[in-house]
């Protein structure tokens, strides 16, 4: 069975919000749109976005990590938002696991958003229906687009390639491989929702240098007849 999803690489996401606006851009004029903006030029502008990038600080100065954290619907394998919907407007597609809302059926009761622990559904105040990430269904199967562009808008736009799109049930997909090789994890596993989207953790590259590496017989100082200073400690005694 196919389960399409996004794998988000927190190791490279720089928090540029490109995925945020490019998502909005594609979707507002597409099958999911129009996505309203209220007070667009006034106090407290607010609008419908399917994807948001947040920032967290982990730890205390100077051992601080700044985490940029993009979040859209996780297309849960056990999506609590679906069974609670009284109209069937919220549904999970059998063929590819995408969780969608049928805007023509939705009565705007917001109940599904209560059931979702992740805060990724957004009620569109203009159309009075629940909206959310569609995984760009209107792109990924769009025969009019070249094969390479049949990917979600956010994935294509992301400058760091931090968004990997694919079938997480297919162990051969880049998405699955990234999850297994890089320790991809789901959010709030305790909620039992089994999110299809996964996140790849930070990974640190360090460069330990052994003190003997600092000494070399071919040291260029010797060419000029100067002895490299003994290390450690560094004496500032390297004049001639």
């Amino acid at each position, binding site marked *: 069975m196919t389960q399409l999803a996004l794998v988000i690489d927190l190791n490279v996401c720089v928090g540029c919000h490109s995925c945020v606006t490019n998502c909005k851009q594609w979707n507002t004029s597409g099958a999911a749109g129009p996505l309203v903006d209220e007070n667009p030029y006034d106090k407290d502008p607010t609008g419908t976005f399917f994807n948001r990038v947040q920032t*967290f600080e982990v730890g205390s100065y100077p051992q601080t990590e700044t985490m940029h954290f993009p979040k859209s619907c996780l297309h849960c394998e056990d999506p609590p938002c679906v069974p609670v919907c009284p109209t069937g407007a919220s549904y999970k597609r059998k063929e590819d696991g995408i969780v969608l809302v049928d805007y023509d*059926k939705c009565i705007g009761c917001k109940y599904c958003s209560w059931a979702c622990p992740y805060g990724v559904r957004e009620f569109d105040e203009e159309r009075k*229906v629940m909206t959310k990430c569609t995984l760009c269904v209107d792109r990924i199967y769009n025969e009019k687009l070249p094969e390479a562009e049949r990917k979600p808008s956010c994935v294509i736009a992301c400058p760091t390639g931090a968004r990997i799109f694919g079938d997480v049930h297919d162990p051969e997909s880049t998405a699955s491989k990234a999850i297994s090789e890089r320790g991809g994890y789901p959010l709030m596993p305790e909620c039992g929702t089994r999110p299809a989207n996964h996140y790849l953790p930070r990974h640190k590259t360090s460069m330990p240098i052994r003190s003997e590496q600092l000494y070399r017989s071919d040291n260029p100082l010797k060419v000029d007849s100067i002895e490299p200073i003994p290390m450690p400690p560094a004496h500032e005694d390297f004049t001639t």
Partner: protein
Amino acid sequence: MRPAFSVIFLTTLIGAAQGLFLVLYATELAHAEVAASFYIIGSAVILLLSGLGLLASFFHLGHPERAWRAAAMWRTSWLSREVIALPAFMAGVFGYACAHWNGSAATAAIGGVTTVLAITLFVCTGMVYAAIKVLKEWASPLTIVNFMLIGCASGATLASAYAVFTAPELTAIYARAAMALTFAALVGRSAALLRNARLKPATTMQSAIGVRHPRIVQRSQGAMGGSFNTREFFHGKSEAFIRSIKPAFLVLAFFAPLLLLFIGISTPTLLLIAFLLQYIGLLAERWFFFAEANHPQNLYYQTIG
């Protein structure tokens, strides 16, 4: 959660309606000697209350004209079930009233069915909230029990006030029943409050973003002017306000009615006030019920930056 007034009215109004019905039906079962009009007007009151509740609920919908669709998913959705149960209950009450009007012998049978519907509706309404697993404050059998007890208590208080005008001989017994039910509801609600106060959230900042570190602080939630997620899931009131609401609703919905019901046995006019106070208290109680529920999604919406 942000308390939605439509839902507050819906649940409190239909709760009282269901409670009133149960009291009426119990009266009939107890073979009390009352005129048919007592049942008919009572049913009308019930229908009025539930009708108002139903009306209020429409205000909660983005697309009320599509409300009929909400019956579709009764297999999985408690909301759908509630949507079916409420009109069914109302139909039951209507049938019950008609039967009394006609002097039909079917009143007991229809009342029995309607009782089942009333209880079903209580369960559905309670389960609408209790079924949301991520909202730990709600996801408890106490939610259903309390919806039921509170509905019955307010229904009984209403019944006692109603009886003042229509069947004064019943006021005392109704008031006693109302006291008992209000007391039970107080116990049930207090149990829920105690439980919730001791709840440890299963979901933490750590599991929300998948980082194991004791100190994680959000610096930006990604939208500064607010979003659906900052409006729907926050009560938007200060901690102090929340703290003051709790004693207020305990007094208004439980202690004051208990006292007034007690005095009302001898001074029946107070029973009407008892109901009004209790109803106002229950509005506050229901407001608090929402406000107290801290949705795990709020972990993601803590800091504007």
